[in-house]
């Protein structure tokens, strides 16, 4: 077997079937296999894979979005409840505070009344005490004065009784106002 390169311009006829047919059959088969293995299968597989990936991602994003929407709705519901609850609590405590304030004021008023009363009583007592002391001093002064006037040593005990009686009579009429 040898290969003979022909440099002359020998040609096949324009319309004839020859060995070229067999060569071209084999060439077509080879080209088909090459394009299938190296071009169509890898590229189609790659694009399919990418398409699937993107589809998955979009699905995942949709799922996530759905979840988020659900959560949002839940939270909104909760928030509305919380708002109502808060109002309720405020109302309750306002009411309680009002009651409390009312009670405090009432207690304070009662206490003030008691204190006033006590103060009155104290005052009264002090006054009575003062008056009694005054009575005693007046009687002594009177005796002193009387003994100076009379220049005579009276029986102190008798006179004191007498004067006290007088003063108490006078005092009673005065104190009755």
């Amino acid at each position: 077997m040898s290969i003979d390169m022909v440099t002359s311009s020998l040609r096949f006829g324009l319309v004839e079937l020859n060995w070229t047919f067999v060569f071209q059959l084999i060439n077509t088969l080879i080209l088909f296999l090459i394009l299938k293995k190296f071009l169509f299968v890898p590229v189609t597989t790659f694009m399919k894979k990418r398409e699937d990936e993107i589809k998955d991602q979009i699905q995942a994003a949709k799922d996530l979005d759905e979840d988020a929407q659900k959560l949002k709705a839940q939270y909104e519901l909760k928030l509305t409840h919380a708002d109502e609850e808060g109002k309720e609590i405020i109302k309750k405590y306002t009411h309680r505070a009002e009651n409390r304030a009312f009670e405090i004021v009432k207690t304070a008023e009662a206490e003030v009344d008691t204190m006033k009363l006590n103060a009155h009583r104290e005052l009264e007592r002090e006054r009575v005490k003062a008056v009694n002391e005054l009575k005693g001093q007046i009687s002594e002064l009177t005796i002193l004065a009387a003994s100076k006037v009379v220049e005579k040593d009276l029986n102190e005990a008798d006179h004191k009784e007498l004067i006290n009686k007088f003063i108490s009579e006078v005092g009673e009429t005065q104190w009755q106002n």
Partner: protein
Amino acid sequence: MGSEGFGPRIVFTLRDLPFVGDIPVSETVTVTWMIIFVLLVFSIVATRNMKREAKGLQLVVEQIVSVVNNLTKQNMGERNYMWAPFVGTLLFFIGISNIIGLLGFRPPTGDLNTTMCLSITTFVLTQFFGVKSKGLGGYGKGFLQPMPFLLPLNIIGELANPVSLGFRLFGNITAGIIIMSLLYGALGSLTDSLFGLAVPLFQVGVPAVFHIYFDMFAGLLQSFIFTMLTMVFISGAME
């Protein structure tokens, strides 16, 4: 075989092969090898390191493959998707063959051997998948439709398909080759007779318009027609 005419040149001859003797190899075959080589290199380079975000060559190759895939799906149905590599082979091989005349090569499709090889392949696939999907009985019955006496006509019609398919492509491309070489010859002698110049000035620019028509337009159109008809025949036989 001779040294005249528009037939493909014989590039080399395999001599003294056992049983068959000498086999002359024409430029049709060598140009086809070149096309195969270019497509092989392109396929390997373009599908190397494919990224999720396509750009550059990957974008081109993805676009090409999806165009062929979609063409196959549209013409043969979603389930005959696996025919895409075959459709692509026909489309690329015939398309590149038809426009390779622009680079000064003789188009392989300007050889009846190539076109008949492709159309007979289509014919065989059509018959094979017709029988496979309908069964031999169902397939045979198709030849008796609509009337039994039309059987000879149906057979002739079926056999005419590969012949018309092969000769249409061959005729278009060969006509282009012949017209273009006649045009070059005419432009050369026109320069010679008008100015007496040995340099064929008119061959500059003027043939470009004809190249656009015969190589680009007719060439791409014929490759598309061949591919479309192949898809129609095969899917028609399978239905």
